[in-house]
């Protein structure tokens, strides 16, 4: 097991977000320690996406702080936050249909490739070498996650499961230390879910990544997560081990609208 990275810890403190008059998040505090997998669950509209948007820099928080390691993220651009080691996998794969799987993966090498636009236009030899190195790296990642066979295929023709894997491959290629996974198994069949779950666990144990996992599938949460945090109407209503949280009457109330008699 590799040493957990101090940079890979997320600390959200008293986070609040308001849009106009609507309070999407209120006084949200949660933490993901290095090497942890934390589940973020809650009914639709609870504010999970807003939370992810705040952490990744797409939305600016109204109050509170978000720290990655000891760096304050609020106010930074998404690409700056990505440079700090935050990787995000979106709920709907944001992939470019007209490009190959390999090219889509390579988008993640963007920061690593350090030549200027001008150098690229002119075709300096360093550009070619850097691109080739990136390709080799991408191939490695593709092999690791099981996409090696489809690298040349147009992403538009590739099955949905592969596109989800592609998103995961990107954050690995980026060298992210902390991952935000937004409903990674939605739309996948059983085999694909198994494959992805194994990958996630492997990423944590072999690479020491920390993961904040937004999920609706409670089985997966139980299986993968060390801890779980429950969000409802913008507020944290429970936090603890998956079992504790999933049996918590407040959580059941939020999901089912009522507490079952046998709770």
């Amino acid at each position: 097991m590799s040493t957990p990275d101090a940079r890979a810890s997320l600390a959200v403190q008293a986070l609040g977000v308001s849009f106009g008059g609507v309070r999407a998040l209120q006084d949200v505090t949660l933490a993901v320690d290095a090497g942890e997998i934390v589940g973020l669950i809650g009914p639709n509209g609870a504010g999970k996406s807003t939370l992810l948007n705040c952490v990744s820099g797409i939305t600016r928080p109204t109050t509170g702080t978000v720290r990655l390691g000891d760096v304050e993220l609020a106010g930074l651009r998404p690409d700056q936050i990505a440079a700090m080691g935050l990787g995000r996998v979106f709920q709907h794969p944001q992939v470019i249909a007209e490009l190959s799987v390999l090219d889509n993966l390579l988008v993640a090498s963007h920061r690593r490739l350090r030549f200027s636009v001008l150098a690229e236009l002119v075709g300096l030899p360093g550009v070619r070498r850097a691109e080739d190195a990136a390709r080799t790296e991408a191939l490695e990642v593709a092999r690791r996650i099981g996409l090696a066979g489809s690298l040349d295929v147009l992403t538009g023709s590739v099955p949905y499961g592969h596109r989800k894997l592609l998103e995961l491959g990107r954050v690995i290629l980026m060298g992210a230390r902390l991952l935000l996974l937004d409903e990674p198994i939605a739309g996948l069949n059983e085999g694909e879910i198994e494959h992805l779950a194994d990958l996630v666990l492997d990423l944590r144990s072999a690479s020491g990544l920390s993961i904040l996992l937004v999920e609706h599938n409670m089985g997966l949460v139980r299986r993968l997560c060390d801890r779980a945090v429950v969000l409802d109407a913008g507020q944290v209503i429970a936090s603890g081990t998956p079992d504790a949280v999933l049996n918590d009457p407040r959580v059941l109330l939020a999901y089912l609208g009522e507490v079952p008699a046998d709770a």
Partner: protein
Amino acid sequence: MISQLIIGGLASGSLYALIGIAIVLVLQATEVPNFAQGEMAMFATFVAYTLLATYGLSWWLVFPATLAFAAVQGVIVQQVVIRPLLGAPIINAVIATLGLNLALHSIAGMIWGNQTNVLTSPVAHLPVFQLLGVNVSPDSALTIIVSVAMIILFTLILRHTRAGIALRAASQNQSVAKLMGIAVSRSFAMAWAMGAMAGAVAGMLVAPILFLDVNLMGALLIKGFAGAVLGGLSSLGAVFVGGLLLGIVENLLGAYVSGTFSEALSFTLIIVVLIVAPNGIFGRVKSQKV
């Protein structure tokens, strides 16, 4: 003096608003910015002219007849040009409307030639009258009144008729509308028909003032777009105000700053406003779930 400019601005502004409404009706319903709107309106106006001048019919007949023509025109365009493009990137439909724009311009030239015609306004014989100490020409008054009437009419149709409500539902969410049994295609055709009618009315209002030739609507279309964007594309009301505002600002700039640069200045102003309010003055952001 300034009130005079404002009245004049309201008159031209209500024309911009009408075109803007025509554009946004179609835009909200089918997501296509119709760049052929101007030429469609010009075509309909020429039809009106033909009925008036060649057949000597009166405005009471010509107005509804032209509206009917425009409605049919809108439906045909939607069915023949736009419907096949559903699902393709929007820019394809934009280019298709541009093609239609060119084609209509040419066809109009072929049918009616390139000369300038005079279209007698229905209120030509009325004198200039005074309102609150300001001189108002009957044409200006007619323009403002008819434009406002059309906008109110459309708003009422959209809010209170079955077809109108169906149209709004279809614009919001096509798949849900389909599930509810609303004939989405029919709603879209209706949107295009309404847009075409609004455009035709604008054409009939402006032709008596500017003289009728095939280049009538070119500049007006751009202003229509500009006014709509200024107000914000989110509602008919926003578009209406945007168009009026553009008309007034243009007039004021023309008088107080520079006559030659009034259009350029207006556009610059719009760009500045958009920097501050990227979705127009009243625009609401359509948030996309990522």
